[in-house]
């Protein structure tokens, strides 16, 4: 045992220990310098399948600091997660409550296509700039209720995957399109997303620098009883106290403080816990600060019920001679997974006045809800 664990421990711990010496050279967590999805929001954060509104809206904030003008292709895949099953599109479990052994119905290709389109949404933005936001609506089928009853669940923790790609970077999107178009040469629906590792399938052949995949959890309840069901809300933000530090000549270091305030009623809700839930009844919200230059310290800050409703982070950067446009992003997430986000813009130069304002965001449009059930 000694050799095994000794080697494993040495190879794990020593590099980590040595690496600490270079920590200052690692890109800070607040820095957005790659093609990334920064946030995914599900509206509402909880959904009850017994309710009248079984439609969720999934929105995502995508950052591309290179400011590409080309199209963005994306897909949103909603999955329920039960019994530890890997995949998320198991039709039998969804439509036949008695079938809890995961035997599958013999759906025709057309039927499966309809089923498929319930949970897999495709979209496209013709241009995106430095960041973009897009939406998709998904209506959960009423059959989920039967499934949950069969399992005895009052709630299911589900997931939604959002894939965003530069045009042509993600082969899976072309395959999905071909399948939906009925192309006989396309992979079948089962091959596409049935009982597979969704992340592996979605990113197959997609280069990291041209694609981004994000995962978000959300709760599917049989029936919602709480009256409050809001995502948290960033109420206000402000870039203040920009000062010029002269201690780093010849480079000038500027230091700005960014303040974020939340709406406590929406962001720090108190709600009745589900008997099955292990979630907190008193929410805690975390705000994450991002920027496309410099470093924001701290990267995260927390809001508590009895704490201040404003939190600040300091942006340190060394601007060049010419004023530089810097995007700032705030992502707020509460303890049950509710999300809010916004993007800001600052123009900061070595000696120029800082100009700030809402960042122009390319926004996609949501598709019409697909059929709810089959």
């Amino acid at each position, binding site marked *: *045992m*000694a*050799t*095994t*664990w000794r*080697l*494993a*421990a*040495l*190879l794990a*711990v*020593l*590099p*980590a220990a*040595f*690496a*600490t*010496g*270079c920590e*200052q050279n*690692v*890109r800070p*967590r607040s820095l957005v310098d*790659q093609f*990334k*999805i920064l*946030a*995914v929001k599900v509206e509402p954060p909880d959904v009850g399948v017994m309710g009248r509104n079984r439609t969720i809206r999934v929105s995502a904030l995508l950052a591309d600091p290179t400011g590409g003008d080309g199209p963005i292709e994306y897909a949103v895949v909603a999955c329920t*997660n*039960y*019994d*530890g099953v*890997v*995949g998320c599109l198991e039709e039998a479990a969804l439509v036949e409550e008695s079938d809890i052994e995961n035997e599958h119905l013999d759906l025709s290709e057309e039927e499966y296509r309809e089923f498929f389109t319930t949970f897999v949404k495709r979209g496209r933005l013709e241009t995106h700039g430095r960041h973009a936001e897009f939406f998709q609506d998904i209506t959960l089928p009423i059959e989920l209720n039967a499934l949950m009853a069969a399992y005895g669940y009052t*709630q*299911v*923790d589900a997931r939604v*995957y959002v894939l965003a790609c530069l045009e042509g970077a993600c082969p*899976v999107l072309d395959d999905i399109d071909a399948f939906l178009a009925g192309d006989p040469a396309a*992979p079948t629906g*089962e*091959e*596409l997303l049935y009982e*597979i*590792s969704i*992340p*592996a*399938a979605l*990113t*197959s*052949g997609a280069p*990291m620098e041209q694609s*981004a*995949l*994000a*995962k*978000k*959890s959300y709760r599917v309840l049989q029936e919602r009883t709480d009256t409050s069901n809001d995502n948290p809300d960033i109420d206000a933000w402000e870039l203040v106290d920009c000062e010029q530090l002269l201690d780093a000549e010849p480079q000038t270091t500027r230091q700005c403080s960014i303040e974020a305030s939340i709406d406590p009623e929406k962001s720090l809700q108190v709600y009745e816990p589900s008997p099955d839930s292990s979630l907190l009844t008193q929410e805690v919200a975390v705000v994450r600060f991002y920027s496309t230059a410099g470093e924001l310290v701290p990267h995260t800050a927390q809001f508590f019920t009895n704490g201040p409703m404003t939190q600040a982070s300091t942006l340190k950067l060394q601007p060049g001679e010419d004023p530089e446009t810097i995007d700032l992003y705030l992502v707020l*997430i509460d303890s049950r*997974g509710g999300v809010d986000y916004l993007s800001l813009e600052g123009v900061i130069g070595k000696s120029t006045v800082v100009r700030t304002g809402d960042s122009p965001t390319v926004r996609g449009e949501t598709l019409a809800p697909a059929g709810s059930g089959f």
Partner: protein
Amino acid sequence: MTEIRRTIRRYALLAIALAATVPAAGASSRSPSGGMGGQGAVDGAGPGGPGVERATGTVKGKVLEAGTRNPLEGVVVLAGGTELETETDASGAFLLEDVPAGVVTLKIALPGYKGASVDLILEPGKVLVVKQYLFPRADRRYAMTVETRRESEEVTEHNVSIEEAGKIPGTFGDAIRVVQNLPGAARVPYSLGFLIIRGASPFDSGYFLEGMQIPNLYHFLGVTAAINADLLEQIEYLPGGYSCRYGRLMGGIVNLDLRDMFGGPVHGYVDTDIIDTTVMVRGTVGTRWSYAVSARRSYIDYVLDPFAADWVGYEMRLPKYWDAQLAVGYRPNVRTQVNLLAMTSSDAFAVLGQAGSSSSGQPTAELSSQFARVLLRVHTRFSDRLAHTLVLSAGPDSEYYQYGSNYVEGTPLYFAARDEWVAGLGPSLRMTGGLDATMTRHRFDITLPGTASSFQGEAFAYSPSPYLEAEWRPASAWRLVTGLRTDTYFVPREGFSAIVVEPRLSLFWEPGERMEWHASAGQYGQFPDETEFFDDIGNPGLLPAKALQFEVGGRRDLGNLLSIEGSLFYTAMRDLVTEPEMPLIDIEDLFLLPPDNTGPDLPSYTNDGMGRAYGAELLLRRHFGERLFGWVSYTLTRSERTSAPTSVVDQVREAKLQYLVAHVPEEYQDEVRWDLFDYDQTQVLTLVASYDLGNNWEAGGRFMYATGNPITPASNRVFVVDTAGYIPLYDPFAGKNYQRLPPYHALDLRVARKFVFKRWWLEARLELQNVYYRKNIETWYYPYDYGEKLWIYGLPFLPVPGLRGEF
């Protein structure tokens, strides 16, 4: 003081000379006691002519090597102006009788040493005792003479003398580290001291002490060994195809044999450099007992502690280690040799937290390791044809590794015994049989990464392994060694038992005195680690892993000191224990399951692994003995593994990647995919040379080139919105280890100067590591978002001065 002595001596010599001239001038009689007093001898046949009574005395003494004080044998000692001459015996002693009294000039000479001429005043009838030190000439090497115990039956065995090994640059003077420069050995990151031999995993190779496996041989970071190499007779490096004396491993072996006796007068040394200091004393008690005591303590923690936090940004308990050994040799009669060794070793290292943070004081990572052993060896040679060796070993280990909230703590207790008989059954047959048995009390406590659960295990494991080997010489040029070993392993409490039958065969052919060819084949088995088969966390149904090793090779001497040898090898491994692979869901998904659902069963260890390693080794060596020694070692290897001997398509399908089935590249469609082994290094070239420059100066260098280790980069990543964390994704087609780190190469230099005094010597040395400051990448890691690879470099240019004083 010296000048006063010289003056007194000058006057004394003058007085003696005057006295001596009186009889020479014609004085026919002297008192029997002569001018010097004392009894003289009457020698009628002396130079004084017949009838002249001549006064004589006796001169006896010892001749020792300056610096080491080792007795010198065969030294010619003659009395000037006479024909009296003698030689020293093995103890360095000489005796000259009937030496004419008066001024005697002793001339002392031995090839390789500076001659000495000593003027003495000998009184008639007296016995003059002399102790003379001879200084080695510039081209004379200080050699540590050791006995070689047994004839080797191994097909490929590289033995390096302790002294030779200590002069290799890059080893910090630690002879045991020299094996990392020999053929078959791949380079280990950070030179950690583990063995990666002929494409085998570090877990498959091991260190032995007198044939008994020991858990660790090196202190952390592999800077130095945990046992003083000066206690050793030889370092035996067996990369493969070894005899059935050794088992329970599939890879290579390094066996350390203790010196039988630490002869001579009391010797000792202090060796110090910027990292640690070693102190050793050895000597004999009477004619039957000898002893050696050694201790070493590092102090790099003291040296660097004030700077460490600023340097790395973390509060650390810097690595510190110490070890100590007590060795006793006892030779009750010429046929029996008894050795006792008690040793202990300790290492500790911890990262406490970020400098200045409130977490300082609570380790974020901690490694500590201690072990102790008591080893008793009794060797009896009953006759030229029958010998018996019994080795007993016992001791506890303690290993503790913690990283964050995960930790592993193991406190096993080892007992081991080897009972071996060697019998000559005629002029051409020799049989070796024995029992190699171990009993281990395993005890561990593990908290696995990603879980909140800890597992405790405790059980006794028994492993008696009998072996029998025959060495047959059907003709003078042919030698056949065939043996059978049965490795067994029982852990009753866990219901685990396994047996591996291991036949082995080696054939040697010596067509001439300077050439030898060999071929070998054999099976080698290895039992799973206890953490792999304990029921709570492992799989009690695991089988032992097995390897079939094949080798052909040869050796040719190209002169007295030059030789070349090479081997081709192939190793086929099966039933390798493979790590449990998590399902293709994110680990956090397991915790999103409803509370009444335990989720899918986590997979356990399996025997699905297969491996193969093949390659060639070459060693061109100029042996130790003259001014220049060194070697060129080259190893060409390819080592591969597969965890499922099925086609890529099947693997993808089994992994529930149906979508990807349609996208399997054509070249993979029908092929079983073999991934490169984690430490596969296609080429390893080592050049080692040391040269005696004369006047006690020596200089050496080592150049090493090794292909970079394979790595598996992430192909993409998943951003987990809820935690703001990232999960890596890997290309399912490319498999593991499809990229490589850049090659490693570095030059180390060593220069040393020895200052020899009568009773002791001092060596000052300077090692220059990585002379041309190659930024070698030792390993790498991803930052939080897997967005780039971050490299961790090896040692920069590093001068390491050291001193060694020995008496």
